[in-house]
């Protein structure tokens, strides 16, 4: 399989902030790669570099057979992009927005019109086609923006956090649309902060932190990488948490997590059911009353925590300002 997107050693600096620090990736044609990471990890910058909106300070990348710097002009007719902030004009209707994009892809007046109608129908926006986008809901705006990316039927697509800020229903709708797209054979690079989204839409997931890739694989491979199973025990009293931790430390094959609010302790183990049996035995000897206990597969949150040492969402506050700086 040939790669539709290849990037090596991409570096992008803004003054003292290093947004990309040797970012590399490859996406085989017809597959979906999700870049997973918190705000400020370098996801958006990666997309902006690969779609020619930004020039990298170092490194190289080839998208759809075109070098992103040398063949930038030719590349633009081969990619579609839908960003974090819906790039549509509020005063124009949905149909006018798509027609304008068609004209700017030089499809001609008739084809632009036809294509706009097709896409509006496909994205369930026919009823709203002739209303100014100003009155659209958040989900509708994302859909019209995504439709804009598809006007020229480009072989390679970039979606930058397509569902950030949407309510669960609008998110599920958009996922269906994207799944359908992907089934049609497009190559897609997707960025997201949501494990579930990466899990659901992508063939491969790349975990991004501080401007570079730190791990890649399928959701299952990444979960295996952080080790077998987790046992999770909930106790009845806060004072019992520390004793529980000490009692179970010998079972842990990685860092244990304590949730003081939920009164639970999560322990990565090699063998789930057997470890759970032993854990319950030991805790009973200590006289600790266990309210709830179970074995579970690691979630992508566990993956992220293990790989980076921090949670995906926890440092959102202080990276927000930095992220805005970068996307401005």
């Amino acid at each position, binding site marked *: 399989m040939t790669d539709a997107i290849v990037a090596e050693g991409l570096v992008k600096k803004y003054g003292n902030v290093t947004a990309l620090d040797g970012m590399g990736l490859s996406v085989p044609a017809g597959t979906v790669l999700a870049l997973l990471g918190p705000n400020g990890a370098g996801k958006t910058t990666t997309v902006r570099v690969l779609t020619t*909106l930004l020039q990298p300070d170092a490194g190289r990348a080839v998208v759809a057979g075109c070098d992103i710097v040398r063949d930038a002009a030719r590349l633009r007719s081969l990619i579609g*992009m839908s960003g974090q902030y819906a790039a549509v004009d509020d005063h124009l209707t949905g149909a006018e927005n798509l027609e304008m994009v068609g004209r*700017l892809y030089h499809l001609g007046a008739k084809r632009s019109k036809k294509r706009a109608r097709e896409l509006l129908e496909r994205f369930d926006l026919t009823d709203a086609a002739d209303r100014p986008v100003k009155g659209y809901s958040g989900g509708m705006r994302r859909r019209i923006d995504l439709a804009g990316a598809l006007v020229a039927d480009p072989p390679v697509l970039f979606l930058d956090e397509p569902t950030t800020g949407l309510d669960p229903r609008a998110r599920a709708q958009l996922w269906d649309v994207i799944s359908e797209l992907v089934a049609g054979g497009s190559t897609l690079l997707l960025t997201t902060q949501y494990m579930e989204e990466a899990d659901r839409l992508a063939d491969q997931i790349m975990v991004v932190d501080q401007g570079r890739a730190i791990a890649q694989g399928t959701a299952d491979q990444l979960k295996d990488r952080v080790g077998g199973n987790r046992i999770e025990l909930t106790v009845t009293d806060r004072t019992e948490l520390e004793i529980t931790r000490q009692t179970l430390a010998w079972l842990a094959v990685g860092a244990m997590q304590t949730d003081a609010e939920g009164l639970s302790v999560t322990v990565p183990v090699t063998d789930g059911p057997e470890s759970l049996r032993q854990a319950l035995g030991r805790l009973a000897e200590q006289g600790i009353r266990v309210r709830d206990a179970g074995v579970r597969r690691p979630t992508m949150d566990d993956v992220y925590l293990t790989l980076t040492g921090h949670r995906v969402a926890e440092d959102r506050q202080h990276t927000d300002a930095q992220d805005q700086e970068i996307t401005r």
Partner: protein
Amino acid sequence: MNALTLPIIDGLTIAKRNAIKIKRSPDLLGAAVMFPIVFVLMFAYVFGSVIEVPGMSYKEFLLPGIFVQSVIIGAQTTGYTLTLDLQKGIFDRFRSLPIARSAVLIGQTVSDLLMNISTLVVMALMGLVVGWRVHTSPLEALAGFGLLLLFAYAFSWVTATVALALRTPESFNNVATMVSFPLMFISNAFIDASKLPGPLRLVAEWNPVSTFTQAARELFGNTSTAMKTSDAWPLQHAVPVSLLWIAIILIVFVPLATRLYKKTVSS
């Protein structure tokens, strides 16, 4: 399609988008129509009742000056709209499309020219109502409006450059007001500049606003033999010097704005 026609074709597509936007923004359109009406009435009757110019009615003297003022203000729409668009994602869309880099700016300046045309038409009609008359041939009068519109178009590129350098609507408005007011008032647009004290007179004589106003007065025949035109070179050759100004502005600011646009949207 080639490198020469592409920016124009793409520019017209974007101009069409802007024209739709203007059509759907009653406040913008209202301002474009109301503003000339208010200005003509205010200047004609407030200034007109206290200022006298030798050999002709003040209203006839004034209207060409107001025309120039209105295109200066009208051209600021270009810069202001660009700063607004910069805050949104639409430029990312344009940038990821296979279009000429200059197309967005061409589109913006062309649609603003359309707006300036409508403002000028309303203003001329208003002028006729209050007593302004053209005393030259229709061809010369047409040349007068043509010159004003060329100036409007060229000045749009100046405001685009300023906007792309400043980036925010607030700072653009501040700078635009601070620069355009002295430019408009230290000139012969509203007064007989030959009566200004020395240094101010010198500024007024070489101010391009004076040159354009003088050129418009000549082309519309709003001059009087009783009022001596200043000996300053730009005012003695107002029409050719105006054309020279337009050429200089375009040669300097079109490439400058295009370069700034590339830099602004790619960082």
